[in-house]
């Protein structure tokens, strides 16, 4: 059966305000939540694997992979509850690993698992590197389709046709499997993912699905394998390191205007932009 490996990460809740220390961030009391783009990645995998006419039949096995301290893997439980089949946790503080090491870990797990498709979010909302997926594809020598907004799986030719969000519009790219895709927001619109089995116009519920009660119960019974970076032969070389984290300079306080006339007057004479 086709195997899909999805990478997932926990991030500090983006809706909470950041706590700055002298040149750093205080993460000691943050609420950790799943990275939104990884929820889109898992949803993409679930839609590829699902036969909507026969929920018991699965077209692919879905393995979720996270690099995190193994005692702090609540996000992993959530993804298993959404419907992923099993998990792999690489026990490490991901903030101590450089991007190259993160990519090497994922590539090694993909090889060991014999994955046919690797799906990652296009970026994590905290670090915003937007490079791990591309690196994994490079290490594996696989084709890549980044910033996917639409995914069409043709099981006959064993290819994915991916609509990629690029600067000029949407690029349509066909990649033979095994392949890696990174997903963007619009991949979770109701008709963005097709697998050739479900009717082409089948509408999934908009957005990543919520875990059902049954899913939550089941998640506890699903297998999670725990590995260490050393098990995979990966060591971080400290390629990127943090010198400081600072608060961006605040914008100069603005002013409220009372009317359109006043606005236009100020844009013309004060801001000099009209």
């Amino acid at each position, binding site marked *: 059966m086709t195997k899909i490996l999805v990478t997932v990460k926990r991030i500090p809740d983006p809706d909470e305000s950041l706590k700055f220390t002298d040149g750093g961030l205080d993460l000691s009391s943050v609420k950790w939540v799943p990275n939104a783009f990884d929820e889109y990645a898992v949803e993409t995998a679930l839609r590829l694997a699902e036969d909507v006419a026969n929920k018991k039949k699965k077209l692919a096995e879905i393995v979720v992979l996270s690099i995190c301290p193994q005692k702090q893997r609540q996000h992993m439980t959530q993804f298993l509850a959404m419907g992923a089949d099993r998990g792999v946790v690489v026990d490490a503080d991901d903030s101590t690993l450089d991007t190259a090491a993160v*990519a090497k870990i994922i590539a090694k797990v993909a090889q060991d698992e014999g994955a046919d498709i690797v799906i990652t979010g296009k970026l994590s909302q905290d670090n915003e590197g937007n490079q791990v997926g*591309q690196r994994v594809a490079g290490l594996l020598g696989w084709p890549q389709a*980044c910033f996917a907004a639409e995914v069409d799986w043709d099981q006959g030719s064993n290819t994915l046709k991916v609509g990629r969000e690029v600067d000029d519009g949407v690029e349509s790219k066909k990649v033979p499997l095994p392949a890696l895709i990174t997903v*963007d927001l619009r991949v979770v619109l109701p008709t963005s993912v097709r697998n050739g089995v479900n009717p082409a116009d089948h509408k999934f519920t908009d957005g990543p699905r919520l875990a059902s009660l049954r899913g939550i119960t089941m998640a506890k019974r699903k297998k999670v394998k725990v590995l260490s970076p050393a098990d995979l032969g990966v060591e971080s070389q400290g390629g990127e390191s943090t010198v400081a*984290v*600072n608060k961006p300079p605040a914008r100069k306080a603005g002013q409220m205007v009372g009317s*359109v006339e006043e606005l236009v007057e100020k844009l013309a004479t004060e801001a000099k932009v009209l």
Partner: protein
Amino acid sequence: MSKVLVVLETAGGKLRNHCLPGITAAKQIADARDLELHLLVLGADDSAAKDIAPAGYGAKMVHTITDAALEPFTSEAWADAIVHAVKTLEPAVVGGTASSVLRGALPRAAAILDAPLSAEIVAVKSGDTFTRPISAGRALLDEKVSGDLVFFTARGSEFAPAAAAAAAAGLAAVEGASVDTRGVEVLGIAKTESSRPALTEASVVVSGGRGMREGDNFKVLEELTDLLGGALGASRAATDAGMVPADLQVGQTGKIVAPNLYIAVAISGAIQHLAGMKGSKTIVAINKDEEAPIFQVADYGLVAKWEEALPALIEAVKARQG
């Protein structure tokens, strides 16, 4: 002497304008490290490289790799070509503007070469330490990259476009590259047809949000946009609702813009939207909800319904333009 190598993109035998800020960032890194600036042009032929070399942009050399498999762009073939150029030319730093092309190809090449990459930098602090926004622009990270070879991508809105130099750059072909598209097929790009300037290059951007309610209502925004010679944008709420095409989205999950004038209409100002437009010089917010977070970043805020404010604004701008 070692060098800083900038990867350029071309179209129709010409340099694409969005690459110019990446050259500026590279020049700053080259100056900080006392290295030469070199440019790399990839394509099916060397016509664009020949067109770029006379302008120079402060570079010593323009290097080219020509191969039919480099067009249309694929990250797979481009990464192979970049890896070959790095092995041949031995630069210390490789980078360019953070476009969808280089965001795809450079990390792939960096992984093959086992090198670090600092993404979306907005400032060069020293030869190896760059500033980049994280957490939707709520914090600025000063990041150090270590090693004999490092990569960067630079955010186009944060560096001035490089200007043509008095001295031309030399032109040389890098031979012997073997590039492989790994069996991928590019079927085409569905472009958003527009007579307006590109969102990321426009000096004025007018954006609409959820409060516009439906696509038809964007017509009044388009009228204002065209009057100001600007580009039309939208918040995620508006593109998700299908009011306008997805590639108009401004924000963390869309385009990052920094025009002279940004007008946000009926946009509440979610963190992810602010991340895409906070760098604008002058921000105007028009929203009927005086509590909307967009007012906290606006230089000029007007509490009003767009149905009333926009027609009046269009008339007032017309009157001023005579």
